[in-house]
């Protein structure tokens, strides 16, 4: 059966309207011109950091973890901290150095073009930062991020992890429609002065290396969508321990940790989000929870996509370098037409991935939870206001309840449903497109390099092992495809299309 006319009309006019997908065009006049300089500065910094830190250590680190899965690259963390990378993209109002957050994407691409595992030791920290910010609790966010900045600046790396995935519930937790059915086990029981947490989290990126952990758990594990809360747990808190380190195929530099909570008491002052905080808003506890889990991926998924673009580039560069040197039958590979066609394909994949994640980056600057930071007036004020003025004259307001209430209203109530849908779908599309291109380029590179490509000491095989995880974390690419369908296509169809709810034996 062909599409009916109303369906076609919906797709072309309501969802995939040409202007809606021209974020870069719109960004030219809506975003501050200064961001271009920030992108270039981030790029220069990344290249210097790659030359001095990543290049000399990435293969060795990978090998060390192969030999001893308990090995942690503490030296890398220390160097990254010495370079100021753990505070550079924290907003000035929270004590950081306030680099434009969109430039983090280009920075991550550059690092991932050498080693996505080491890159993620920085990326995972900013995932934690983003999740904390998405709680819209300025009081707790300010306190924790200032603690992070203080520690980092005194020479002690202080990272934040996101503790979300559970042994029995990965995918279920990241998609709003599935959350109600998730088999979660990590429960937070209200006790005087705080919460008592029991349960465990797995696959937590950089968990063992982090000081703070944004723990997403549930007051009633039978109703996870209605009772989700976010707590800030500090390493060393009683009842909180690290479990095993996963034996991963790749991205070995970035430890994937198990976090165990046994009667772990978390004080009220560390409650980043709970249903109680939105009782005076025109939104339910469930609605707020779903807003949060929809809000931050729109910002963090383009980050994963930028890692994908970086790996795709690394594979392309490896293949070009190899083909330029390798002679077969007396002729260089690169002089052969079939090889040139493959290399052109790989190059195009890199450019496509970059264009896609940059489009999402522009959209994030205009429509996501960080959009206020890119308002031209706000951006300029922030740029030229010294950090101490924020500390003295702005930060105290974050402790005021009415300021927090307005901020929550801004993010939970006064956001456009169209923008949310657009950003959620775009984040998913960006993530799966770029990471699929990364894996594709790695496979093409290995095909071209034959046996040499499979050697660890050459580095190409590591790219494939590393890239594969990009298709899995922050929602598998299949789940992200379904989310894209749900956000950009399903709502245009009449009668309504159900997503994540198809019939089955159960």
């Amino acid at each position, binding site marked *: 059966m062909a599409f009916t006319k109303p369906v076609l009309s919906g797709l072309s006019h309501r969802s995939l309207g040409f202007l809606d997908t021209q974020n870069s065009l719109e960004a030219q006049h809506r975003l501050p011109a200064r961001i271009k300089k920030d992108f270039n500065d981030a790029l220069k910094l990344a290249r210097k950091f790659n030359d001095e830190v990543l290049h000399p250590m990435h293969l060795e680190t990978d090998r060390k973890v*192969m030999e001893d899965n308990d090995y942690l690259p503490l030296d890398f963390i220390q160097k990254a901290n010495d370079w100021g990378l753990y505070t550079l993209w924290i907003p000035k109002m929270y004590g950081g150095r306030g680099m434009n957050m969109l430039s983090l994407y280009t920075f991550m691409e550059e690092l991932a073009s050498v080693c996505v595992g080491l890159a993620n030791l920085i990326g995972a920290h900013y995932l934690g930062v983003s999740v904390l910010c998405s709680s819209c609790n300025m009081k707790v966010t300010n306190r924790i991020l200032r603690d992070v900045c203080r520690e980092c600046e005194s020479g002690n790396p202080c990272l934040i992890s996101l503790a979300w995935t559970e042994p029995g519930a990965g995918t*279920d937790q990241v998609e709003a429609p599935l959350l109600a059915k998730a088999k979660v086990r990590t429960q937070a029981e209200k006790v005087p002065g705080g919460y008592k947490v029991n349960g465990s989290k797995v696959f937590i990126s950089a968990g063992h290396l982090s000081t703070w952990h944004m723990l997403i758990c549930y007051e009633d594990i039978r109703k996870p969508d209605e009772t989700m809360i976010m707590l800030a747990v500090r390493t060393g808190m009683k009842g909180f321990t690290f479990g095993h380190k996963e*034996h991963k195929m790749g991205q070995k530099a970035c430890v994937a940790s198990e976090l165990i909570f046994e009667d772990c008491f978390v004080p009220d002052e560390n409650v980043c989000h709970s249903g109680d905080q939105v009782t005076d808003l025109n939104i339910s506890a469930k609605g707020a929870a779903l807003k949060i889990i929809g809000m931050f991926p729109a910002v963090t998924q383009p980050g994963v996509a930028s890692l994908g673009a970086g790996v795709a580039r690394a594979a392309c560069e490896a293949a070009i370098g190899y083909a330029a040197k390798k002679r077969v039958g007396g002729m260089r590979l690169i002089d052969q037409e079939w090889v040139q066609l493959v290399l052109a394909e790989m190059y195009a994949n890199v450019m496509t991935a970059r264009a896609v994640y940059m489009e999402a980056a522009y959209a994030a600057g205009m429509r996501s939870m960080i959009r206020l930071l890119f308002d031209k007036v706000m951006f300029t004020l922030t740029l030229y206001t010294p950090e101490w003025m924020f500390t003295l004259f702005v930060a105290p307001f974050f402790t005021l309840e009415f300021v927090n209430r307005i901020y929550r209203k801004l993010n939970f109530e006064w956001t456009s449903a169209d923008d949310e849908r657009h950003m959620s779908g775009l984040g998913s599309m960006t993530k799966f497109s770029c990471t699929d291109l990364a894996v594709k380029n790695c496979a093409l590179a290995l095909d071209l390099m*034959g*046996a040499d*490509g*499979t050697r660890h000491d050459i580095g190409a095989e590591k790219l*494939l092992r590393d890239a594969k995880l990009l298709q899995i974390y922050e929602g598998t690419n299949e789940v992200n495809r379904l989310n894209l369908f749900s956000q950009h296509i399903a709502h245009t169809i009449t009668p309504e299309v159900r997503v994540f709810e198809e019939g089955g034996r159960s």
Partner: protein
Amino acid sequence: MKGPSLAVQNEELKAFNDLARNFAKKELLGHTEEYDYPYSREVSGVIARAVEAGLFGINMPVDWGGVGFDAIALSGTVEEIGAVDAGMAAILFTHAAALEIIAAAAENDAESCRTVYGLAALPEGVPLAFQSYASPDESDLPVVTGEGKHLLTGRLPLLALGGMARYAVAAGARENGSVFSWYLIDLKSEGVTPSAPLITLGMQACRTVDVLLNNAPALLIGAEGDGGDYFRKTQLRMSVPAAAISLGIMRGCFKEALDYAGQRWQGGRNIVDWSGVRMKLSEIAIGIDVAASCLSGACSAADTASSNGSRSALAAAIHISDLACTATSEGVQLLGGNGYMKDYGQEKRMRDARQARSLLGMSGLKKMSYIDEIIKEANL
């Protein structure tokens, strides 16, 4: 040299397949992770037990204590082993490929190969080392010098089993020579320096090393300068077991994915009840059926010994290795985060499938030689 035909139809070979299945179950199942790193558990013990079980003698001539089948007969064995641990299958493959080079040389001059077989058949001659992951066309071959004797100087990169075997079958060429020859090298002789074991993407039970040769003495196999002919014959014959290894990996992948899908609970049901999951499982299962048909067809065609038949084997190897790479990547995806972890077998299968793709040379070059043959026959 041709022995009984068509592995799948031969009762004797079925017995070997059963032997391989039982061996894999007893010796490999549950231990694959231990062998999957060159600096972890030693593999010499399990290789010795495979030798004892007779798995290394399938394509060794009867006169030298083997079973006397051809390389195609090895397919069922490496498929069964590959379904559990492709690394062990690569060990069998490496030894068999080296024997096929000798067999190709013996087709024209059996007498001159007696000494070579004599050494290869000795207990310390098993297994033989061989550069399983490359064709001589894509390698810088060691230079051969000496009059009346053969001294090799150069490098043998990624020599499979080079760290443990006594003898290696390797190619070398006279300086400025456009042709190459095959040699048997005693890896314990002077002038042979192996590197530390190399880390490779997959099939790591089959340990590899780089070997430096400095005027290392070697024994010529067959006629000098006929190396290209021997390799082409070997490549075509060994393409069938190469394809079988990939098929075995796919079978292991599907089994694990299906078991997992039947147990894992997401979205309020077992994931096997989501149609998206079923579609992925279906695509892997279809890939397996296509690969099995393709392999069976290649076996039949190879049995006719026509050039078309030989090409079918190469086509099967290229196509099935491609299917295996796709299937195993999806196999990881079906298990999500668990698929990426070493607690399950999927991540290893994904690496093994990619490693298997480079057996006997780069896939791009194999495709080129495939079409070259057709164009040559068409007199274009």
